[in-house]
């Protein structure tokens, strides 16, 4: 699913830039906010399985530039993650066995 905003920015780029991209083999992931596409109003902190997808292995919050979330939903997500952490639903720091 492509959002119209993304489409516009793609079209806005000139042909030269596109060629450069091809030459440099730069891979651009499509940035789509998953909460916008699923039409969610509220992100529930009780649903920890959903939150885990936006955490790194160490338990850090994945930045917006990587996950592609919009600012509005990233703020809500951060709040939900912090609440879930406080209630021991998800870890503050996940130990990685070495």
């Amino acid at each position, binding site marked *: 699913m492509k959002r119209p905003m993304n489409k516009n920015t793609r079209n806005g780029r000139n042909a030269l830039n596109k060629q450069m991209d091809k030459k440099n083999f730069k891979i651009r992931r499509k940035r789509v906010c998953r909460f916008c596409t699923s039409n969610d*109003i*509220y992100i529930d902190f009780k649903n920890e399985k959903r939150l885990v997808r936006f955490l790194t292995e160490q338990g850090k919050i994945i930045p917006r530039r990587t996950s592609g979330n919009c600012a509005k939903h990233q703020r809500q997500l951060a709040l939900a993650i912090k609440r879930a952490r*406080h*209630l021991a639903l*998800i870890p503050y720091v996940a130990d990685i066995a070495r």
Partner: protein
Amino acid sequence: MALYETIFILDSLLPPEEIDKQVDRVKELLETNNCKVIEIDRWGKRRLAYEIQKKQYGYYVVIEFDSDGTAPQLLSNEFNYNDKVLRYMTYRFNKNIIKDRAKSELKAAKETKELEEKIDEKEAKVEPVIEAKKVETAEEGKETENEKTNE
């Protein structure tokens, strides 16, 4: 008055009667202070994501209530004093939560309506079949009568 929710984690090693007692205690505390308890949801024993007071499991209880702004302070006083409570959190429902609930309620209402309509349709379908059968029997009766007259 606004909607609030408090979640607290009790020591899971407590006997069940003691857990009931603690939940009732919080409920009574809320009710004596002009709060309207809407729902008590017991998640039960769950594994904690990290150890709290050297405990790996906790008993989660969620209480939703309607209150003025004094309730969070009241609850935090209670929970801080009570060492059977490992962790607690009280928060006020923001507009997003309320919107989301209204939406899901609307959806549920729609679904029940559709179900009812389906049932109505089924009933409507059943009736004509019975009528058709009646007609058939009536025709058969006529035929037999005709046969009789022929004889």
